């Protein structure tokens, strides 16, 4: 698979799979970084993150109209957290993703714009769910072909 979306997502994965406690991050969300999201059993207990593209649109930069698409990518991380420290873990994993995506221009091939941060949102369920997460949205101009 070498379409431009796959190339972009693979570069994201290379950035984000560095998120490990042993390497100084606050969570281990990068240990299970996947481009193929699938249902998970809570008893596995492992943090994970998934990277998927959400949509593509006309390039927003006039100079790139004929050569590039504006690709929107979502990074979703989920981890176990009991109700007394849910917000702390949301902050921890959000901090990790920001850090892992900073200064990584070299991982994105020529012609691929380094992802631009757009937004982030916490993910919370009912108090007893025992899991929390975050969802980040990035955009990048990527080659049409």
């Amino acid at each position, binding site marked *: 698979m070498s379409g431009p979306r796959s190339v972009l997502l693979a570069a994201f994965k290379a950035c984000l799979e560095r998120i490990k406690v042993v390497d100084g991050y606050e969570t281990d969300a990068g240990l299970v970084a996947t481009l193929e*999201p*699938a*249902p*998970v*059993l*809570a*008893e596995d207990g492992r943090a*994970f993150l*998934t990277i*998927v593209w959400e949509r593509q649109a006309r390039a927003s930069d006039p100079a790139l109209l004929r050569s590039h698409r504006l690709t929107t990518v*979502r990074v*979703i991380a*989920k981890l176990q957290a*009991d*109700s007394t420290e849910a917000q702390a873990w949301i902050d921890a994993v959000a901090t990790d993703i920001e850090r892992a995506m900073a200064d990584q221009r070299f991982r994105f091939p020529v012609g691929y714009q380094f992802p631009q941060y757009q937004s982030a*949102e916490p*993910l*919370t*369920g*009912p*108090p*007893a*769910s*025992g*899991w929390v*997460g975050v*969802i980040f949205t990035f955009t990048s101009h990527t080659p049409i072909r």
Partner: protein
Amino acid sequence: MSEVDFLRQHDAAFFAAWAGVTGGLDASYSAPGSVTPVTCQVLVDHDVDQFLPDDDAAPVSIMATKATFRREQLEPATGGTLVVDGNTYRLLQRVSGSDPSLSVWTLEKVAP
């Protein structure tokens, strides 16, 4: 007899009968901040729920546990601790199913 009295009597009879069928409903409850547990009878329901706040393709299947207390025995409180079947839970939230006779709570499992 008032309707509430009827509910209480009905639930007391049901708990007693169900305890006989199942071999006992005994659990140990500690109020928040208390170190002296009291024995009570609870019904425990296990179910599965999906942690899927954003409708994405990676839902987390979680075990959702609820406990039903008889309010005549004790009035549970948020943050109370329940030990039942060797598992320790924290009381998180009172939920529907509660009435003047019963108090139903979602539980969060904690390390013993």
